[in-house]
């Protein structure tokens, strides 16, 4: 019997190694796997490259992980936002490497990693500072740059409902980065609010097939914080 549901956070985090690239889902707090990030803090892996849309806020979650000196590099689209105090400080002190990626390119680079595409061309960023060091090429008279896929060791994601095969259904704007991150990582760990019996999730509503999911942990998270 396939059973991807794990019973403890320790089991969910097992085997995450120092030096890993870790994708962290969510946009704002919606779809953000808060409990799993806490679990990763507890678990202890360091020298991490973290990929998320933002660079953390306050002193919790990703910001806390950074504050503890466990993050070597952050890849994101929006590092500076209200409350990104930990990022600001570490970055200014030269203790954190940063790669800024346009949000769509970030999503597409992960999708590419999941889809077996090592690189693709995009018009986003062509001719800008973010094109520096990237190959440029013209197609049909328009300028594009070459972007590489962004594969990862681990993805921490959140979903609304799962079954023991690891199939995932999201709620409202909770999909965001989660389904593409699930595709891009070798080890995908999902935090979910609900678990249904196999066969109870509507096959037409499953967004992430269990094929992309390795472990599921039920966490009664409640509503995303505002």
């Amino acid at each position, binding site marked *: 019997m396939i059973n991807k549901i794990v019973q403890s956070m320790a089991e969910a985090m097992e085997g995450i190694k120092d030096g890993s690239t870790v994708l962290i889902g969510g946009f704002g707090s*919606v779809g953000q796997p808060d409990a799993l990030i806490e679990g990763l803090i507890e678990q202890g892996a360091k020298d991490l490259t973290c990929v998320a849309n933002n660079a953390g806020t306050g002193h919790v979650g990703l910001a806390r992980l950074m504050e503890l000196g466990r993050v070597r590099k952050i890849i994101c689209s929006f590092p500076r936002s209200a409350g990104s105090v930990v990022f600001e400080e570490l970055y200014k002190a030269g203790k954190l490497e940063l790669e800024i990626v346009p949000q769509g390119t970030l999503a597409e680079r992960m999708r590419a990693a999941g889809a077996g595409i090592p690189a693709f061309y995009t018009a986003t960023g062509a001719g800008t500072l973010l094109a520096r060091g990237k190959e440029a090429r013209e197609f049909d008279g328009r300028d594009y740059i070459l972007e590489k896929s962004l594969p990862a060791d681990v993805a921490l994601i959140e979903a609304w409902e799962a079954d023991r095969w690891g199939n995932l259904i999201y709620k*409202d704007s909770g999909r965001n980065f989660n389904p593409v991150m699930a595709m891009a990582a070798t080890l995908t760990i999902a935090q979910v609010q609900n678990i249904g019996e196999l066969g109870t999730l509507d096959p037409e509503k499953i967004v992430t097939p269990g094929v992309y999911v390795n472990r599921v942990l039920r966490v009664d998270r409640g*509503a995303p914080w505002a």
Partner: protein
Amino acid sequence: MQPFSRSQMAARAASDIPEGWVVNLGIGMPTAIADHVPLDREVIFQSENGVIGMGPAPDKAHENPWLINAGKAMVTLRPGGSYVHHSDSFAMIRGGHIDLCVLGGFEVAENGDLANWATSENDSAPAVGGAMDLGAGAKRLWVIMDHTTKDGRPKLVDQCGYPLTALGTVNRVYTNLGVFDVVKGTGFVVRDLAPGVTLEYAQSQSAAKLHTT
């Protein structure tokens, strides 16, 4: 002289959006445009985080913390709305399926270049978000911004001084002084001026030639 208020600027931009367009509004002033589009003029507002067909902000009783827009404010979903994930959302944006994107701006150049994400080449950690994707991908790109900076420097320029967001894609600019089309080969063309604002005055507040017709 009665320069447009922010609300008037948003209303002016809203009045130029026809029914049926798929529209992405940037964070800040652009977001306010939606409030000036009546619900019976069906415009499909898209948000980068995968919401297609956003409606107005919910009243207290109908707040849903799982349903937010790119500015992380709670929104609603109109009948006919749907959800996609981030890669599908940006496929829509980058693939040219958004009829219009409206962004804020630091500078717009007469060749249609937009600078709106970084204030200097030396700022190594500016937040780009989805601006470059939207700037390069939308069918039309409008910018809504004050005509000058707080300290009076023009934001309509012959060439952007700030790092670029997108090259040559701005089609129109809404400012407190008026509405200006960006016409390939010509530059800024005055489409409308705020009540009492003369061409001479608008020109004096701009660092690029303003054309008529």
